[in-house]
């Protein structure tokens, strides 16, 4: 599983990455987590606002920090 946390590196981007990593730790799911700050790559994904989370190429959330429950639901599918 590949998880991308999109954002330029602000507080909410860091919070998002933390939530994602906590969810992975809790679930035991193995995933490669990458931070993406490149505007071109973010734009190619069609993301309107960051922070955003992309799992295996699917944008799961845009413009807000997800809850751990959200992330657990996404990675368990």
């Amino acid at each position, binding site marked *: 599983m590949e998880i991308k946390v999109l*954002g*330029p*590196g*602000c*507080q*909410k*981007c860091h919070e998002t990455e933390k939530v994602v990593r906590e969810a992975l730790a809790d679930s035991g799911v193995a995933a490669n987590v990458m931070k993406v*700050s490149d*505007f071109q790559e*973010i734009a190619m*994904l*069609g*993301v*309107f*606002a*960051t*922070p*955003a989370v*992309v799992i295996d190429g*699917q*944008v*799961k*959330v*845009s*413009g*807000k*920090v997800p809850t751990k429950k959200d992330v657990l639901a996404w990675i368990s599918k």
Partner: protein
Amino acid sequence: MSKSCCSSSKQRMILACSGGSNVGQATNQAAVELTREGFGKMYCLVGIGAGLQGFVQSARDVEEMVVLDGCPVGCAKAILDREGISPGRYVVATALGIEKVKDPQLIVREEDVQRIKDAAREGAGAASPDSARAATASCGCSGKA
């Protein structure tokens, strides 16, 4: 890039039909100007229409949306309806008294653009200077970098 990140403004997505008529082009110009003025950020309606997943998800997640259609055909709204997304504030240029005319030059009148902009702003709250700064990389930060 992080300088353009932490905006205290509300995320407001602006979608224009940008159609091939004077009123469609007037919505496009209104969306461009509203973006430049910091009212919100114009976004790619065609990406949503194409069903591109990231665009559709972004439209679902946005805090506030303003949709500008040129005429009652309502193409912009129909795209959102198909995705089950509520348009939020909805403006139709012809409903504002702007006439749709057969004009191969697609002349856009400044007064028409202004009328559409006024309707988009009506009841939508004040513009934030931060949102213009964040127009190319808006994020959900509350300014607490």
